[in-house]
């Protein structure tokens, strides 16, 4: 959790612990980072996330399994960036819809509940992808 501008209200981190640890315990391979930032005006959240993901120090092969949710208060956008290993799981319509739900919940219920919703949705969607992957492994598609 990265929140240098302190957008989250007091006690929010504690509330997010439970869903975050549930996700982590279920998928220990995956590291999810939530970052609430106020980028400089004109800075693209997508480009910033791309740069941060690849240039932050301490990178190793495991970073391909990272997932970065960047919330930019300057442009008012949410940007979800997966490592290469998670692209097939994350870059899909259900994840886009989960992100839309998170954005709507920010407005209606506040940051804490929105991020809790996102963590729960993320676990559900990763579960679905895991089941799909397992089914495909059990019966691989026929190749011509």
């Amino acid at each position, binding site marked *: 959790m990265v929140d240098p501008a302190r957008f989250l209200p007091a006690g929010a981190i504690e509330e997010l612990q439970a869903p975050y640890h549930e996700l982590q*315990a*279920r*998928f*220990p*391979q995956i590291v999810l980072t939530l970052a609430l930032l106020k980028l400089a005006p004109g800075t693209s*959240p*997508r*480009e910033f*996330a*791309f740069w941060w*993901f*690849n240039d932050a120090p301490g*990178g190793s092969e495991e*970073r*391909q399994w*990272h997932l*970065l949710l960047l919330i930019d208060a300057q*442009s*008012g*956008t*949410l*940007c*979800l*960036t*997966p*490592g*290469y*290993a998670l*692209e*097939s*799981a*994350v*870059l899909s*319509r*259900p*994840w*886009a*819809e*989960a*992100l*839309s*739900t*998170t*954005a*709507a919940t*920010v*407005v*209606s*219920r*506040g940051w804490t509940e929105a991020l809790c*919703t996102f963590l729960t*949705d993320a676990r*559900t*969607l*990763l*579960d679905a*992808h*895991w089941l799909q*992957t397992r089914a495909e*492994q059990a019966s691989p598609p026929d190749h011509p």
Partner: protein
Amino acid sequence: MIPLLFSLALLTVGVPGDSDHATETPQALPAAPTGHVLDRMDWLSEERRLTLEAELSRIHKEHDVNLFVVVWDRRLPDDQRPEDLAALIGHTWSPGEVWGTVLLTPGAINRPIAVTGGKQLTPEEDAHLAAAAAYSVDFGRKAWTDQDRLQQTALVLSEELVFARQTMTDNTTAITGSAAPLLPPASFLSPPLLAAAGGLVLLAVTLLWFTLRRRKQPTPEPAPEPATRTFPAPAVQTRLGAPWSGGSSLLVPLPTKPSA
């Protein structure tokens, strides 16, 4: 009931800016949408909205059933139930005899509700429609995403309302139709037909016996799901010289506050 509904027409709704500091101002129910979907938050994708519009318009045209899908963008006052708002929308917007409203409120973005009603319904018909609404919500819960949940609820409810309306029409026809004698003609009681009926009964009993016997056989226990789940390492192809991520196409703006 009606006075309550019309008293709701002047809903006191909040300004959903910072949810902790929302103030409440009087606000009238918006005018009926030109179609059947009202989503001022643009929460539904364009593709999904068009799909819903097309199906609900077809059902309205062919069966005279009005179903509205509403994504409400304002917080309800604490003493107002979403069900009352949904009923108000149905009563106010629907010119037809049978209507339904599937409503999503900011307070329950993952739990759509469904309310049904109509003009001059008997208590039995009213109860039938209410059961259809409950079933559609229950069915919608099985969907993965919130948007899917809303769409499934609406589509299932539309089918249920069409069926209910058809049943109501059939009943009316049966009551007002000709009072023909309902006794079977004497030829139905002839020995060959009785023998055939007996054979069918025997066949049905045999099939039932086989089915019950198969059910009694124990089924193997499914293997327990692992608590920890890992994905196999995919074949990764780096792009743009970036070692760990190729960037993202998932960018979503925060919705504009209606009060802004």
